[in-house]
């Protein structure tokens, strides 16, 4: 029995497009804030993981690549990767790096540091991205875009690697947003 398709079943297109658009104009990276704010709002207001369950385009993209295009080995994920220690540890690490990115934006805003037109993959490898900043905007806006796009590209890269190695949506197991929204739900229904 095939499930009826809804508009939100096609959000993988938006996720794919997001990564592509970043190659042309880094300012599109700001759109990625939707993927941060909406899941938090949903979990705080409705106490559910509806974003992960229905609206996460990235999860859909991994599912499509892994299942339809058979790019996944479909192996079981190692138990340590789904342990609470790893999930919450990765969330903490992710948050530290996120605040570091916000600090860099602040330093550029206050004139202490110059704009760095690089995208950092895996928080280490600096990829030159100077062609993508085409619009004349204040440098801190561009700096945030470079930083945020680095976060999104890194998480997509990690998701793709675990998609190939394990099951298509393995990223969902340790996705910081998923861990955070589940944590919010846990707090909301505690007691």
């Amino acid at each position: 029995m095939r499930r009826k398709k809804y508009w939100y079943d096609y959000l993988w297109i938006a996720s794919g497009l997001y990564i592509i658009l970043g190659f042309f104009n880094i300012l599109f990276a700001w759109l990625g804030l939707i993927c941060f704010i909406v899941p938090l709002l949903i979990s705080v207001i409705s106490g559910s993981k509806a974003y992960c369950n229905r609206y996460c385009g990235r999860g859909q993209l991994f599912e499509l690549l892994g299942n339809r295009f058979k790019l996944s080995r479909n192996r079981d994920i190692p138990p340590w990767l789904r342990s609470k220690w790893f999930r919450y540890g990765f969330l903490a690490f992710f948050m530290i790096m996120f605040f570091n990115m916000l600090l860099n934006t602040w330093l550029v805003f206050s004139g202490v540091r110059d704009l760095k037109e690089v995208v950092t993959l895996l928080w280490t490898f600096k990829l030159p991205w100077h062609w993508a900043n085409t619009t004349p905007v204040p440098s801190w806006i561009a700096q945030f875009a470079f930083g945020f796009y680095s976060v999104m590209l890194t998480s997509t890269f990690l998701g793709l690697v675990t998609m190939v190695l394990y099951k298509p949506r393995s990223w969902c197991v340790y996705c910081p947003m998923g861990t955070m929204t589940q944590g919010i739900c846990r707090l909301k229904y505690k007691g």
Partner: protein
Amino acid sequence: MRLSKKVAAVSNECVACGSCEKVCPLGAISIFRGLYALVDRNKCIGCGKCQKICPASVISIIDREEQNEKKEILV
């Protein structure tokens, strides 16, 4: 209605991603309060589609009788 011998069981390491809910042909799985997947034992036929897709590998297909004895199963 006769119930199947096998049934899906979810361990407490579930991350509530919702992959199983989407793939279940009988709509026997729902995500409970964003916390974990909840299996309706009366609907589940133990087909194993949820087990196959679960990215966290926390779903197993077990004997219905065995399930009654286990405490970790969320039903």
